[in-house]
């Protein structure tokens, strides 16, 4: 196996996903088949090959530092599942 149940559970925690035991079982098998397939990349010699993270040769895209209108506060809050005044409400973080 390329990946274990424990690793899937750990990755799920990192990704903030809650999986039922049967989901862990199923997904472990599916991820394993994907990773086994991906192992064919080991056959490619990439010694000294640069990575491509972006298809165009753009580096930093600068703009003038001008004051402009941005998203209206009410618009930004319009989809909030819970709000209070001008704030998004979330469960208590500190007790």
């Amino acid at each position: 196996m390329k990946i274990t149940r424990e690793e899937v559970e750990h990755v799920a925690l990192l990704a903030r996903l809650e999986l039922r035991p049967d989901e862990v079982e199923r997904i472990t098998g599916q991820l394993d088949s994907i990773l086994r397939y991906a192992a064919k990349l080991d056959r490619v010699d990439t010694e000294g090959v640069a990575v491509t993270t972006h298809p165009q040769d753009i580096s930093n895209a600068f703009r003038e530092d001008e004051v402009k209108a941005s998203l209206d506060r009410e618009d930004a809050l319009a989809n909030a599942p819970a709000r209070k005044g001008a704030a998004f409400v979330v469960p208590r973080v500190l007790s």
Partner: protein
Amino acid sequence: MKHAALTLCEAVSLLEQGDLTAVGLTESVLARIEAVEKRIHSFITLDAERALARAAEVDEQRRRGWAGRLCGLPVSVKDVLCTRTMRTTCGSRILENFTPPYDATVIRKLEDEGAVIIGKLAMDEFAMGSTSENCAFGVPENPWLPGYVAGGSSGGSASCVAADESLATLGSDTGGSIRQPASLCGVVGMKPTYGRVSRYGLVAFASSLDQVGPLTRDVADCALMMNVISGYDPADSTSVNREVPDYGAALQDGMRGLRVCVPVEYFNDGLNPEVERVVRSGIDMLADAGAEIVEVSLPHTEYCVAVYYLIAPAEASSNLARYDGVRYGVRDMDAGSLLEMYSRSRSAGFGDEVKRRILIGTYALSAGYYDAYYKKASQVRTLIREDFDRAWQQCDLIASPVCPTPAWRIGEKSDDLMALYLSDILTISANLAGIPAMSVPAGFSGSGLPIGMQLQAAHFNEEVLLRAAWNVEQRAGVRGRRPELV
């Protein structure tokens, strides 16, 4: 209802001559939707009332002497593009009730040219899939044979055009998501060069691969849509500041002086014989038009699927971290802690394929595995790009199939994950390299399913694609052939 089947260019001349109004055309399209939508399921959201009001508005503008390039033309867009006036679900429960506070740049561009937006189209959840079966709000069906897939992830965008439910649509393409459904539904679809069209307001799946593009009834309409949506956008720092040509001028008869390559790696054992027959005949049409046919090798083609299914999920796992239930989207209101709120909201809101890709991506980026998976894939991506760079020294175009098979029955491949992933093999490399590519209808299978031909060219050479596609369209004899739905 007869006007619903017009091409954009045909409708433009009728509207200009005063033989048709935007309201009349929109009513035709809405009547057609009423008649076929219950079988095809192209739409997630439809706003007939607003469309008619908008049509009346552009009719009035025309009376006062102003008409944009899409004035009065009913179009629809994949539900991955933000619209201020219509919810934008991305085919996901997690965004079921999300109405964006702004319009995507391409939506602005359509509306600035007078287009009438009818609705938002079905898609695989967050554009992850090849059949649109991963849509939380109904699965679009192939208008040529209901019960068969429309393709994906822009399945609704393709079925909508094929079923005459809009004159043209927009989709998005991360690994073939415009070209593959276009091929399976017998319409024209283009994935432009990365950076040609603004991604502002396109909900992100894999940011280094995603690109917005048109699906249309013919090649001339594709050129018209490209004229409207292309161009630099200061709101998208990855869009490229480069002049937009008149793509319509590219539609010239004849291919003399152009070299078309047929990569040996694209015609392998897994290819359906009917697809091979149709695509080979399409290549013959290019030769008849005067193109020189050459054989070129793209030796890293066999690694495309592996590279894509590491890089795209890695980028997705990062992009989809934003769905945390705080600012928008579904939230589990009973969670006792912040962490519980995140994980419960996400687990309830995302479907299986999205969870799978988030997990594989998180794994490929996690400590201890980054070098072996993400970095390795990004290096092989460089080699895939270099294959293309070498090819362009010997040819101007690459011709191939789009999908190894015609459309298949809904449900047929949903249990075989790797088989489904492998069906993307012919379209993925264009996204990895950032080059433009399109699908043009070239023929039909024995059972009457459409088969498209893929054309790829070097960065910003959309004109060569359109010229080749137009020459195929002139010779293939399938333009204007419509599915018999009613």
